[in-house]
């Protein structure tokens, strides 16, 4: 499965920020995992018809955030520290469950045990 980066040059959001946000989201969602290589800056810039500096800035921002690392000759890769974060929807469901369980007076230990029982094979 190959993912795509989309850029709307008519958008008020700068192209570099659009690229950074999409790559960051793919890393957070675990679609790009540690060790995955990003396209070379020149290749992505040519594909999108953007300046090399625009894509380079997006990569630098990701590097500053610790999500990717660039090495001469080795390209730009997703770092091991950039562990995928659970999707926002999953976090919301978990928060709802915890809130509902606590309203019933359930102890933290019991609500964790309930999740483990639910995860156990039927």
């Amino acid at each position, binding site marked *: 499965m*190959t*993912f*795509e*980066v*989309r*850029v*709307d*040059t*008519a*958008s008020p959001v700068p192209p570099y920020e659009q690229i950074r946000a999409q*790559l960051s989201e*793919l890393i957070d969602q675990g679609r*790009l995992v540690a060790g995955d*290589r*990003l*396209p*070379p800056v*020149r*290749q*992505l810039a*040519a*594909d*999108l*018809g*953007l300046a090399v500096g625009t894509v380079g800035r997006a990569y630098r921002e990701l590097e500053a955030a610790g999500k990717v690392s660039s090495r001469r000759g080795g*390209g730009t890769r997703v770092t091991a520290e950039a562990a995928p974060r659970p999707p926002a929807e999953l976090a919301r469901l978990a928060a709802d469950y915890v809130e509902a369980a606590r309203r019933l007076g359930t102890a933290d230990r019991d609500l964790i045990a309930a999740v483990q029982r639910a995860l156990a094979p039927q």
Partner: protein
Amino acid sequence: MPLLLIAGLATVLLAAALLATRRRATVGAGVGGTDVSAAMRPIVRRSTITRFAGFGIGLAAAAAILTAAPPNWLGLEAALAAPAFALCLLAGVLIGEITGTVPTGPDRAAPIEVRSVRSYLPRFMTGAVIVLGAVLAVLLTATSLMGSADDMSRAGRFLTLNCQDLTASTGPWPGVYYSLPIAASVLIGIAAAAPTLHAVTRRRRPASGDAVRAADDDARRASARAIVAACGVLVAAPLTGTGLYTGMAMTGNACATAAVTAFGWTALALGLTAFIASCWFAAMAVFPYRAAQR
């Protein structure tokens, strides 16, 4: 007359190579629907037109060098015609890859993938070019070291051997008079091939989707095959001349020892092999799709 003979033999071998490589990879066929064809058609058409233009201009340039060279080139024009042809062919492929690929419109998409030159190179053909290039380098080094000046003091134009009281000279010999221009032209051609290969990988995808990507990869492989084949012509054509003239000078020298004669016959066989390889490379350079999926 010898040139006509070589041209005729080359034509026959070219036709034989084309018949031998019947399998044609039609871009888009079998991997997608009409969208794939629509997306790929401009790219395939452009690259085919520019490649054929490069081939035609290359033939014209080679013919011009062969016919318009001044007499004091002493056969050097035959050695430089092939590099001129290969450079024109490379230019044709390069122009096909870099023109008309700038995305337009506000909405643009690019796949997150790493396209490397290595993934598009034809393995066997690349290996053959490297081997022939190494053989050419060794042979030119050897002939350069063995060559001696001719009667007009032009360095490296003759092979001079001594035996007892006799001194025998045969030529033309591919010494420094020929080897340096040949080596320079081959190096220039290889240097031109590198950015052309990079242009093949840098060209943007015509559209998104797995089917288009597969067809586009086929088109890139065909372009890479044409480039490597042009490099093959660049290397094999001078090796043909070098091998044949080395062999003729060695076997025809009155002072040739058994070892020299054996080396001469080996060089002749090498020249003949390189000639067949030149024809094969020329066929692959012009019709790279015919050799697809080998």
